[in-house]
């Protein structure tokens, strides 16, 4: 599976996914008079959300069932040792010895992508020199992507709640702070698209990344890009009947599903792709969302010299005992003047 094949495959799959609702909601009724809105608007979304929740919980429980036999945090700073050796806030966070430190480390990791922030790039100079350059673009792209995605999701609550919670209008206002176009362009949507494009270009332009990337890397990027694009198109270009859409989404969320009239196909396209993302989520690398919380190199404190860590399956010790060792070398030991437990093991001890 090389880069080109992966691209073709993942691109093809996403195109097919786009084609399905187009066929189902647009072509079928026109050609055969079959209406499948209920399938795309109700059945598939419900199905996807169920897979999403069950899948995530199942996966996390599976992880939870595995013990953490050893305490293996990556220690990215000075350990807590002698009282006069500096153990300040940076050390507490990067080499935590207390729960507070671990919580701080996890917060920084989950909310600020701290490890990515440390990223560097190796550069080869002339001759033998290797130099290191701080490389924050990936961090920036990842931050932009994840936070914009979060904002976009929170904004979508306007379709799933009535009345809206207080924070939704505030987010909308801030997100659309710079007013241009009608309806007002949300900056998060544009940034999300830009960040995704950056992440995709990275994979395509960096030979290292092109080599390691699999279909499973391109596919979610293409899928989310397609979701973003359909969303943007729906809001700004092809336009959809928002009231009917909200009727549908509210029906979904209150378990009284309805298919109102007059929702354009672009909406079904959008919701179908989102459903695919939901259903795909638990089986994919996207599970890093939950996994990051369980990573033993990050969520453990470095205190196993202070407190004993328990391994639930710790096997009984089997080792070459001193007795066996002395039996092996007793004579040589005595000869060398080393103390032994049993002075004269054999009566034939040499005088």
């Amino acid at each position, binding site marked *: 599976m090389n880069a080109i094949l992966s691209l073709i495959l993942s691109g093809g799959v996403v195109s097919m996914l786009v084609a399905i609702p187009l066929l189902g909601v647009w072509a079928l009724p026109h050609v055969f008079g079959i209406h499948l809105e209920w399938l795309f608007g109700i059945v598939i979304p419900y199905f996807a959300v169920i897979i999403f929740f069950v899948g995530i919980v199942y996966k996390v429980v599976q992880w939870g069932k595995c013990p953490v036999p050893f305490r293996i945090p990556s220690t990215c700073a000075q350990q807590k040792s002698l009282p006069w050796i500096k153990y300040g806030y940076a050390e507490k966070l990067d080499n935590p010895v207390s729960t507070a430190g671990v919580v701080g480390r996890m917060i920084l990791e989950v909310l600020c992508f701290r490890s990515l922030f440390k990223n560097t790039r190796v550069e080869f100079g002339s001759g033998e020199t290797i130099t290191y350059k701080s490389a924050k673009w990936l961090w920036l792209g990842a931050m932009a992507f994840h936070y914009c995605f979060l904002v976009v999701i929170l904004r979508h609550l306007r379709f799933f709640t009535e009345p809206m919670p207080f924070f939704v209008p505030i987010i909308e206002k801030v997100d659309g702070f710079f007013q*241009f*176009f*009608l309806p007002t362009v949300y900056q998060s949507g544009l940034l999300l698209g830009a960040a995704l494009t950056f992440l995709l270009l990275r994979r395509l332009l960096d030979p290292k990344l092109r080599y390691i990337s699999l279909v499973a890397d391109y596919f979610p990027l293409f899928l989310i890009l397609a979701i973003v694009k359909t969303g943007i198109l729906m809001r*700004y*270009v092809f336009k959809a009947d928002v009231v009917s859409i909200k009727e549908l989404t509210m029906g979904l969320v209150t378990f009284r599903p309805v298919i109102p009239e007059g929702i354009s196909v672009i909406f079904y396209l959008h919701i179908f792709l989102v459903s695919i993302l939901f259903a795909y989520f638990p089986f994919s690398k996207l599970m890093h969302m939950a996994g990051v919380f369980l990573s033993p190199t990050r969520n453990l404190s470095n205190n196993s010299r202070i407190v004993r860590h328990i391994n639930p399956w710790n096997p009984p010790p089997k080792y070459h005992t001193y007795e066996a060792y002395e039996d092996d070398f007793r004579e040589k030991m005595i000869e060398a003047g080393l103390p032994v437990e049993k002075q004269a093991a054999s009566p034939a001890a040499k005088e």
Partner: protein
Amino acid sequence: MGVNRRKFLKIAGISTLGAAAVPAANALAMNPIEWLDKQLGGFTPSEILLHMGHKPTGLKSREALTAKRWAMVVNVRQLDEEIAEACREICHKIHNVPHIKNPKHEIKWIWAEHYEHALPGQYHEHIDENLKKLPFLVMCNHCFNAPCCRVCPTKATFKRKDGIVLMDMHRCIGCRFCMAACPFGARSFNWIVPWPRAEDGKFEGKEPPSPEFPTRSKGVVEKCNFCAERLAKGQIPACVEAAQELCKKKGREPALVFGDLEDPDSEVRQVLRSHYAIRRKPELGSKPNVYYIV
């Protein structure tokens, strides 16, 4: 959907080479900028883009008053406090100009000044005492070479083809560069919300007097618009109308005259032919379109 598609095709057609034969022939008759302007219906390409394929299909209404260059003549000698106040009142009323007591935040479209302020360069102590007392009606001069339009970074203030300098209150970012540029102090800024509204959208305190004309949001600049909205309906500016009515009543020559400066038969041209008229601060070269007969 259908309507929209037709429009879309129309736009698309303009931009494709195949359909360019006729416009190309037309293009020979005018300069490229004019041609493009015509194709775009007066909109810039970026504006067209912002409308996403909607091409304006508007027309000028038949009853609209049109001109090549609108101008006004103020015959100061025919003015008195009453007329000036009537002009100010009707203007501010129909345009929903708020009455703000704090002079720092005041908004004025048309108002009376003393000679020494209206024409500071031409003032001397020994001037006709009568003239000193007369209310000089001042307003936006709708300069032919308007410094405000020159400095506006968004074309929010712009000069129409008929010479009217207009404010696009939808576009103004409130940088107030135009206020610095205007040598006549004709521009006002909405320092506070002019017509405050409650959460439910109802007006707090006073309601604007005219439901037909929009109010403004805070943070935009505004000024006299030569009653562009009235011209479109075939009416002359409200101040001119009010002044002329009052003058008629008082048996005077009309204090305010309005018309097309490029039309030799227009009323303004006739008045200017028969009276000695000056303009404010002519040395700045802004070429005001408001003339004063003193």
